């Protein structure tokens, strides 16, 4: 199996505080890995480093490239990381609230567009072709997730669960190899969480994804993750299968209160 993502001992400091220290991870293609830990453990900070929002103060991050090697993305800006194949969702949904559902998805296709601003201004045939392509692709992916009838709605008018779904759809539209989900089940009831688990399993298969997710909902984590990494105070304190983790005394001590907080 090939490695999709590798991070070696990445750390970051904020002011005098070391928020994350010596975090390492290796993700093989197709894996579904969970990242858990108490609030403030640094999980989102890890995501932010992996996606270029923060640059780690030390350590390196690599992603697999299309021709087989590994690219060093440690100092990449967020947009370049997305273009290299990592997509993410956010803890507090960051949809373009005042744009339509369709536009939210169309923006995700931005990097694959081959026409220039000039083409757009003079409405060249390249523009027309590509715009049609984007429209078709956007509508396709929306229909896969049953959001077609909402395509002209403003994103802020969607019910909460659909907003979360739209965020995932949008991330998928960037054609990633690796998908980072930050607390996708936040605010969901057990029924919705169960549907989400099915959705995640579905997209892993259909879109050939490797998935790393942050979650507090233990039923989700234990239910679908093959491997779990536990963070506390910015450091990895345990790593293993769900059953190993749930019986690990260090983890229990740090955090395992179980269920939704």
């Amino acid at each position, binding site marked *: 199996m090939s490695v999709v993502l590798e991070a070696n001992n990445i750390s970051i400091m*904020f002011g005098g505080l070391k928020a994350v220290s010596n975090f390492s991870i290796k993700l093989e293609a197709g894996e579904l890995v969970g990242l858990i830990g108490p609030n403030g453990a640094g999980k*989102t900070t890890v995501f932010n480093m992996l996606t270029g*929002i923060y640059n780690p103060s030390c350590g390196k991050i690599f992603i697999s490239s299309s021709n087989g090697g590994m690219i060093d993305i440690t100092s990449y800006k967020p947009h370049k990381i997305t273009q290299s194949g990592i997509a993410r969702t*956010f803890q507090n949904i960051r949809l373009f609230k005042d744009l339509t559902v369709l536009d939210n998805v169309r923006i995700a296709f931005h990097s694959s567009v081959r026409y220039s601003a000039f083409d757009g201004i003079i409405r060249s045939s390249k523009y027309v072709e590509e715009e049609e392509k984007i429209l078709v692709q956007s509508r396709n992916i929306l229909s896969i997730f049953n959001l077609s009838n909402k395509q002209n709605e403003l994103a802020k008018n969607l019910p909460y669960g659909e907003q979360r779904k739209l965020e995932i759809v949008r991330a998928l539209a960037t054609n990633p190899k690796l998908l980072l989900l930050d607390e996708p089940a936040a605010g969901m009831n057990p029924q919705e969480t169960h549907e989400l688990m099915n959705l995640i399993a579905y997209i892993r298969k259909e879109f050939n994804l490797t998935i790393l997710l942050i979650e507090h909902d233990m039923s989700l984590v234990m239910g679908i993750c093959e491997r779990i990494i536990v963070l506390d105070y910015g450091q990895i304190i345990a790593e293993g299968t769900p059953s190993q983790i749930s019986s690990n005394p260090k983890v229990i001590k740090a955090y395992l209160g179980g269920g939704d907080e």
Partner: protein
Amino acid sequence: MVFLQQIFNGLALGSVYALIALGYTMVYGIVRLINFAHGDILMLGAYTGFFILKSFGLSPLSLVIAIAVSMMICSFIGMGIEKTCYKPLRNSPRINALITAIGVSIVIENGAKVIPFIGPNPRVYPVLKPVNYTISGASVSQTQIIVFGVSIFLMIVLNYIVNFTKTGKAMRAVSLDKDAALLMGIDINKIISFTFAIGAALGAAAGVLYSLSYPSINPYMGIMPGLKAFVAAVLGGIGSIPGAMLGGFIMGIAETITRGYISSLWADAVAFAILIGMLLVKPAGIMGKNVREKV
């Protein structure tokens, strides 16, 4: 020695800029508004002082009264502007408050122009006799000493209020986190009014002191010093009171040195160049803190 001379000139000018800058920085710290109308408070203070000094003649007592009265009147004006124009916009997008502040500035400047007892023509301020003292080969006028002294005195009083009184503590709380302060039982509206009042009072005092040094006053006189003091506030770190004081003095000295050694034509541009330089290097200012957005 010319350099020392420029330093003294710069300190005197800078102390005035510091007073004005304090008004900008306190208001920004508490409501995140760049109060474009603040420079015009300087003008109103100058004119108030003018009428008092003209009526009673220039003497130590009348000067104290002039400063005190103009501070009082302008603090009411400042509070009034806040209550009518800024308070309704507290939850509106900030660009609206910005435009409103610009509107207030335009009304004050041009209103002063049409009010009969102010009028568009410049007036001459009463000046102190040009008594000079020599320190280390540089000469300092008594005007400069008074300007500097009064400014420092006011800054000390402000420092006391902000750091050693309950109201001051409330001010600091509101500027850190308005909602939390509200939950702690602080009357936000009163504190915000108070902040505007103090800022305006300092601006008014600055107006009188400025006019003693540059005795030609007119309705537009607040624009340039206001802009420079604003640069000073940003330089020192907008929202930071010690920063505003530091920034004021730096701006004053920079201006007098530019005038002395380069040319007075470019002195105004130097102010903006400093501003831009600061923002590009450390936008939070000398004493400001970088605030990260939580993702």
